[in-house]
C-alpha cells in the first residue's frame, strides 16, 4: 500500500480526501485541475474581468445601446419561442417513442439526435435553402405572404431545429421509468384518459420537461452557426447577440464584445442553476416514488 506516491502526498490532503489503496489520485486530479484551469477557468475569468476596464458607467453604456438591447431581445425572445415549440413537439415525440409501436420507430429514435451531430453551419445553409423564397418550403409560403428566411421567423426555425433533442432526450427516460400503476389507479378511479395525463403523467414529467425546455432555451440564446445564414442579420431586426459580439470583435471593440458576453453568460448561468435545482428536486421526487 505505502507506495511512494501516497507517502509523498502532503498530510493536509488526508483531511479532505478519504484514504484509499488505489494510487494515482495526486497526479490525475492535479492534471485535471491544471487542464481545467488553463482551458476553461482562467480564460473565463479573463472575460469576466475585461469589462471592468470600462467602469460601471461604461459597462452600462455598452450594454444599454439600442442595438445591443435589440440583439439581446431577439436572441432571448426567439430562443424562448423555439423552446416553447420544442416543449410541445418534443413531449409529443418522446411520448410516441415511449408508448406506441410503429414502423421505423428505431430510425426515428436515432434521428432525434441528428441536430446534435450535424454541424451548425450545415444546418444553417440547409434551412436557409429550404425556407428562402425560392426554396422547397419557402415557395409555398410566398403566395400566402409569409416570409421565413431573413426574418426573425427564420431564427425561430433554426433554433427549433437545434433544440429539439434536448427536450426529447430529457423527457424520454423519465416517461420510460414512469410506473404504469399510477395511471391504472387513476383509470380505475374513474379518471378519463385526458385527466390521467393531465393530473398524473404531466406532474411526474414536468420537472424533466422544464429541464429540457431550459436546456433548449440556453442553447438557443447562444446559437450562432445555424442562425446567421437564415437570419438576414439586419441590425435591430434580426441580428442576434452572438453575431453582434463577432461584429464588435471585428471592430476591435474588445470591451464592448466582452460586456455583451458577460450579460449572456450571467443569464445562461442563472438558467443552469435553475436546471440544477429542478433536477435535484426531481431526483428527490423519484426517490420518494421508488
Amino acid at each position, binding site marked *: 500500500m505505502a507506495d511512494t506516491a501516497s507517502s509523498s502526498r502532503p498530510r493536509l490532503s488526508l483531511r*479532505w480526501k478519504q484514504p484509499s489503496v488505489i494510487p494515482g489520485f495526486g497526479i490525475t486530479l492535479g492534471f485535471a485541475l491544471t487542464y481545467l484551469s488553463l482551458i*476553461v477557468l*482562467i480564460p473565463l475569468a479573463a*472575460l469576466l474581468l475585461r469589462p471592468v476596464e470600462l467602469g460601471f458607467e461604461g459597462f452600462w453604456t455598452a450594454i444599454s445601446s439600442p442595438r445591443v438591447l435589440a440583439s439581446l431581445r431577439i436572441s432571448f425572445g426567439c430562443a424562448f419561442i423555439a423552446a416553447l415549440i420544442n416543449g410541445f413537439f418534443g413531449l409529443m415525440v418522446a411520448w410516441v417513442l415511449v408508448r406506441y409501436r410503429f414502423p421505423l420507430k428505431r430510425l426515428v429514435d436515432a434521428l432525434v*439526435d441528428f441536430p446534435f451531430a450535424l454541424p451548425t453551419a450545415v444546418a444553417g445553409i440547409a434551412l436557409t*435553402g429550404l425556407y428562402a423564397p425560392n426554396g422547397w418550403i419557402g415557395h409555398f409560403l410566398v403566395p400566402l405572404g409569409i416570409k421565413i428566411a431573413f426574418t426573425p421567423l427564420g431564427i425561430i426555425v433554426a433554433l427549433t431545429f437545434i433544440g429539439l433533442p434536448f427536450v426529447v432526450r430529457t423527457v424520454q427516460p423519465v416517461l420510460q421509468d414512469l410506473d404504469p400503476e399510477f395511471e391504472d389507479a387513476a383509470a380505475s378511479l374513474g379518471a378519463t384518459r385526458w385527466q390521467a395525463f393531465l393530473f398524473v403523467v404531466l406532474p411526474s414529467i414536468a420537472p424533466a420537461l422544464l429541464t429540457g425546455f431550459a436546456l433548449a432555451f440556453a442553447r438557443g440564446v447562444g446559437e*450562432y452557426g445555424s442562425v446567421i445564414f437564415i437570419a438576414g442579420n439586419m441590425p435591430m431586426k434580426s441580428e442576434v447577440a452572438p453575431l453582434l459580439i463577432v461584429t464588435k470583435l471585428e471592430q476591435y471593440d474588445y470591451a464592448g464584445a466582452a460586456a455583451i458576453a458577460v450579460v449572456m453568460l450571467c443569464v445562461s448561468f442563472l438558467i443552469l442553476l435553475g436546471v440544477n435545482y429542478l433536477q435535484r428536486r426531481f431526483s428527490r421526487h423519484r426517490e420518494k416514488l421508488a
Partner: protein
Amino acid sequence: MTDTVAPVTLAPARPRDARSEPLWLKILLIVASLGFIGFMLVLPLVSVFVEALAKGLGPYFAAISDPDALSAIRLTLLVAAIAVPCNLLFGLCAAWAIAKFDFRGKALLITLIDLPFSVSPVISGLIYVLLFGIHGWLGPTLDHYGIKIIFTTSGLVLATIFVTFPFIARELIPLMQEQGSEEEEAAISLGASGLQTFLRVTLPNVAWGLLYGVLLCNARAMGEFGAVSVVSGHVRGLTNTMPLHVEILYNEYDFVGAFAVASLLALLALVTLVIKSLLEWKFGDRLAAGMKH
C-alpha cells in the same frame, strides 16, 4: 404487458384500455410526430445532398477536390486529431480522480467540467481572443516573442478543445462511478501496479463508454463553427476548417460548392449517428448514464 392487472372489484370494464388512448388519437400523435421529424430533420438532411448534386457528379467532385476544400479538410482532421486526444486524456484523469476517490468539492468539480456546454460558441472563441489577441492581455507579450495563437492553427485547436471539453469526461465519470472501485482495489492488493490496474481492469470495463464519448467529441470537434470562426481569421487554405469553408463558399453564392463540402459534414454526422445507435443498442444499459449529449 398489463395483462397481470386484475384487481377483483375495481377493475375497469376494459382493463387493456386503462392506459391507452383511442386508436384515432394514437394515429394522430404518431403522424404528427413523424411529420414534425420529417419536416424539421429529414427534409434539411435530404436537401443538403440534393443541392450538392444539383449540377451532377462532375461539379460535386470538382468542388470537393478543390485545393482550398482539400486544405480545409486536412485542417479539420488535424484540429480534431489534436483536440480529441487532449480531452481524452483529461477525461480519463478526471474520471479516475472523481470516480475512484472520495474528496471534498467533487460536486463543484463536476459542475465546472460541464461549464463549457453552457457557454455560447462565440463566447468560447472570444475568451481566447481576449487573452491572446492583438489587444488581448497576453497578446502583446507573446507577439514580442514571435508567438501567434489567434488566427493560427493553435487558436483553432484551443477553441475546439474548449467546446468539446466535457464530452468524454461526462461520459466516463458516471460510468466509472457506477462500477465502483472494488475491482481496482482487488487488483492492487494482488500486487498490480496502478498503471497495470488501469490498463487491465478499468479500461476494459469502460471501453465502450470511452468510444461513445470520443465519437461525440470528434463529431463536435470537426463540425464546430462559432468558436472556430471567431479565432480563425478566415485565411483561405490556411486557417479555414470545413465548416468555415462552407460559409465562405455560401457567401460567394457558390451553392454547389458550399453544399458539396456540407454534404461531407452531413455524412460525418450520419456515420456518427449510426455508430452511436449501434453502441447504444448493444451496450445501452451501460451507456445509459450519460446519454443526454
